[in-house]
């Protein structure tokens, strides 16, 4: 059964068309990356799936429900590029925030926070304030917070975009470990081709103006991925395939104004 079914979704902001004719199906336990140049609407698509904004047209089904109902049922865990931690709360209390919203009893809440901090390897930092942690640690807190209530669907909007390369690769490994352990489905927005190939089971390549899906590339690298995965020939083949799909989309975009100019002349 698919977790997300998107059919004919479009989004307009005033006169600009951000998304057009989006068709996408995401199966259970998939790790799907949305990749494309800025302005291709990948973040917009993520927000539409998460019911943070409404689509202008089309239909979205999440776990057999509307996106709104899925949000009300707390089916989404969201992670942004910035950790967005509440600086007046301790690390433990930040992780507990969604549990408070779901009215979990205190004991159960505290036990779960411990489990989550173990998962992201931050045991011992419970009573630290967010601003006392490094950027990578803060982002791990935000991952623990998003996973704390076992959401069926994890929506990640360039979560490692603000981090340095070393931290980023380490957190990629951690994310895969967490993904395997939690059994959730992930939709992951990124700018990085190698990150998308390394992490995903499917890479969705998007092109801009108007934002649409130009290609869906299944990633058949064997699971679990390890540090040596990045050195396999198949990895480079897939990176090349994604890069070419991106350029094709880009060329199409460049071709488009040329034809319209001709039409105008």
């Amino acid at each position: 059964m698919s977790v997300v079914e998107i059919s004919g979704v479009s989004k307009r902001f005033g006169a600009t068309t951000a998304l057009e004719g989006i068709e996408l199906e995401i199966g259970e336990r998939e790790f799907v990356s949305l990749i494309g140049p800025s302005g291709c609407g990948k973040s917009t698509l993520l927000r539409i799936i998460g019911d943070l904004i409404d689509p202008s047209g089309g239909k979205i089904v999440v776990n057999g429900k509307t996106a709104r109902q899925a949000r009300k049922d707390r089916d989404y865990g969201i992670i942004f590029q910035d950790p967005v931690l509440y600086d007046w709360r301790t690390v433990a209390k930040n992780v507990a925030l969604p549990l408070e919203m779901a009215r979990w009893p205190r004991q159960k809440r505290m036990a779960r926070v411990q489990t989550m901090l173990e998962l992201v390897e931050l045991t011992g930092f419970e009573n630290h304030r967010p601003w006392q942690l490094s950027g990578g640690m803060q982002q791990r807190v935000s991952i623990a917070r998003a996973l704390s209530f076992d959401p069926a669907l994890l929506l990640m909007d360039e979560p490692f975009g603000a981090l340095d390369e070393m931290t980023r690769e380490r957190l990629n490994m951690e994310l895969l470990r967490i993904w395997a352990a939690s059994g959730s489905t992930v939709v992951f927005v990124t700018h990085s081709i190698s990150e998308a190939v390394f992490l995903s089971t499917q890479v969705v390549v998007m092109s801009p103006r108007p934002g649409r899906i130009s290609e869906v590339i299944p990633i058949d690298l064997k699971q679990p991925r390890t540090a040596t995965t990045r050195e396999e020939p198949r990895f480079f083949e897939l990176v090349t395939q994604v890069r070419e799909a991106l350029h094709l989309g880009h060329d199409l975009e460049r071709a488009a104004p040329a034809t319209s100019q001709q039409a105008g002349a």
Partner: protein
Amino acid sequence: MATMAAELPVERRTELIRRAAARVGTSILVLAALWGLWEGYRWLWIHEGWTWPFVVNDTTMPHLHDIFAALWGSASPGGVGPRLITVLVKGALFTAKEAAAGFAIGALGGFALGVLLAQFRLLQRGLLPWIVASQTVPILVVAPMVVVWANPKLPDSLKDWGAVALIAAFLTFFPVTVNTIRGLQSADRRALELMRSYAAGDWRILWKLRFPAALPYIFAALKISATASVVGALIGELPSSIPNGLGAQIINFSQYYTTQPRGLWATNLIAAALGISFFLIVLIAEKLVVRRAPENLV
């Protein structure tokens, strides 16, 4: 207290003591500098016989030590009756009661109004201009009216001082309302989206996100309001001829200024001390309540 200090590591303790000493030292230096400025100005103007902007003598600028000495002298010119400081502290305590009640009413009312206006934008657009306009009404004109209107309705225990508290509240609520609105709307957009993804309702978002985000703004307003409430109480006392507060002492000593200038200066000193203590109480409360990243403190 002693046991608590003993539990701290030695270097941390010496660090705390060093910082406290530095702070006390700075305060003493500043006070000494102000003292020097006053006495230096006085000496220079008298010595050179300068008359601009005003003639300096024992009436216009008494010696600071004379002003402090006057506090320990008798309150009335004849040299009989209680010490001046006893009379003034009694008056200050009465005024403090009015100001504290006014501050509490104004802060709570101002906060409630701020929450209401921040939650309902339509209300904000309709009401905020009038709330701003309310602050342009001269308080000296309104004060006697408030006393005349409120006093007959107040129970005996609240007579007079209750009305003055309302006047103090009138000066207190405005900064709190404006900063509460601003603070509640300062919450990060993505933090709001997170709350939305947790299916949190408006009131839970208000309490768990908007209110903590607003606290530094609210305390910035409370610091302004703390001193404003003392000014409000003093001004409220003037036209309502309430005899027990510092306001009555100000009227009294300004009438005797030419013969006994130190009395008014001493009253001024006590009134300033009252305002400063109100400010310090809010400052301490802020240190205890607001836990934010250094860059998010207002």
